[in-house]
């Protein structure tokens, strides 16, 4: 290699490192203090209607489902704080909100997402209190909504169970990542490209970790739901997930 080639090689390695390392523990949370005040408030406001809908929906089901929901919330927290051994180093973990949306519906998932994000901020320093609105929108509202929509659509199109579960969870994860990049880009547009240029930059920064993570999320969601069907069928029937599965 010539000297310039060596320098180019070293630099591309360094850049690859920069792109891969930052997300080792912090999936797609926007960190505390990273957004200017106006954006914090705006994203919080966007979430409010979804959370209100979720609370109204939960009020009806609260008595029967309270503890199951709490378990699902604790599960999301635990799963997002545990790393999966020996898959792509040690930096991958599940998000779990798509799973909650598929099981309980998007409205309940938004409320669960909010509570879990508060806990992640306070107990793990993932995300933060000021960025709660933005994170709730990307991880609690947008991602789960898409996951649930894709799942329903796939079932209607008579796609296989595994395929629909995989697509729902993976696409939900991908959308979360796109929304977060957009949120960062809106707050910090680049000098030349504006919001769009900056969005492409952030998408590029997160792509190397988020694309494999979406696939892992999809596979794990399939495994978890299939496993649940064999060991917790009564509970799945209680929350209305299994009944519909029996129809087709």
């Amino acid at each position, binding site marked *: 290699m010539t000297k310039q080639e060596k320098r180019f090689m070293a630099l591309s390695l360094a850049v690859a490192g920069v792109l891969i390392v930052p997300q080792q523990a912090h999936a797609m949370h926007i960190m505390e203090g*990273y957004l200017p005040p106006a954006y914090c408030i705006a994203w919080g406001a966007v979430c409010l209607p979804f959370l209100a809908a979720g609370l109204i929906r939960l009020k009806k089901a609260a008595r029967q489902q309270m503890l199951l929901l709490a378990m699902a919330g604790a599960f999301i927290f635990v799963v997002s704080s545990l790393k999966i051994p020996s898959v792509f180093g040690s930096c991958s973990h599940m998000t779990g909100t798509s799973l909650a949306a598929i099981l309980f519906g998007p409205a309940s998932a938004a409320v669960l997402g909010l509570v879990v994000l508060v806990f992640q901020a306070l107990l793990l320093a993932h995300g933060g209190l000021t960025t709660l609105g933005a994170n709730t929108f990307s991880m609690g509202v947008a991602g789960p909504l898409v996951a649930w929509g894709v799942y329903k659509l796939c079932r209607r199109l008579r796609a296989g169970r595994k395929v629909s579960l995989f697509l729902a969870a993976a696409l939900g994860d991908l959308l979360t990542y796109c929304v977060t990049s957009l949120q960062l880009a809106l707050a910090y547009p680049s000098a030349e490209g504006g919001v769009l240029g900056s969005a492409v930059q952030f998408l590029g920064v997160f792509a190397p970790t988020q694309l494999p993570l979406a696939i892992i999320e999809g596979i794990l969601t399939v495994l978890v739901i299939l496993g649940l069907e064999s060991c917790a069928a009564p509970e799945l029937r209680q929350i209305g997930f299994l009944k519909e599965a029996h129809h087709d």
Partner: protein
Amino acid sequence: MRGKILNIEPLSLLTGALAALVGWSLLAGSLPRPWPAALALALGLALALGGHSHGSAVQIDRLAHASRWADMNAALKTLGCCGLLVLTLCCRTPWPPLGVFVYTAALCMAGGAGVRRYLGLMALPAAFVLLSAAALLWRWAPAPGGLADLPLAGGWLVLDAASQALARLVLARALGALGCLYLLSLSTPLPELLAVLRQAHAPALLLDLAVLIYRYIFLMLDTAARMRVAAASRLGYEGAGRSLRTTGLVYANLLGRSFARARACQQAMESRGWEGQIRFLTRRHPVRAGHIALFAAPAAALLAALALGG
């Protein structure tokens, strides 16, 4: 890795190197020649050698319960920390947020977190904050012309003064805000925080859910750890494919068992006359003037700095 004198993992070495690069980019051009490189090297070494703490959910919870500030009025702490947080975000120069960080860090360390443990807890988010500044600092351009240029893919990665200033401000604010967040979470046990929210008339349903989730998080972490040891002892995590399958099975079992536990608990609660609400007793802590001053003084200083254009 824990038992070794220097616990260096390859990943933390890489983190250190990259943090040093970002640190240098932040300081380049504003200090005389050897200083940016020296400070960046020190920062990188500190991050690479200091290590970071794993399983911090349990650790933060324990520190919060044992903190010297645990018997300060929880509403005061919540209001104080959130007030400081908002003021920190409003700053337009990097120095006031850095001051907030130093102040809150000192309070946390004095509260019982200790210097080493606090820095260990800080290392992970701080490394993340530092590294994500790379996207703000460097941009790709067809021609060189900044404070520093690196050739890449037919063009140049350029570091210019404007993006350097922005990155400094964002980093300082993030660090200050992180300090406020840690001050709250390392001094206030979560149940007390939820009690404060209840006083503030947050939806009861949300808070009941949060109380239950808080309780089950630690039980579930414990179960997950035991399931993981069991699976590992059966070579369940050998190779990426098998590891993924095992993880799926463990998670399914974890959630399935928790659902069964939820049913048992639900029956127990209903047979004891549960009507959809959960109440806990909380200790009352009076508000003291000295405690108010702990938050009022930095808030006043921040307001003064903001008024002076900070």
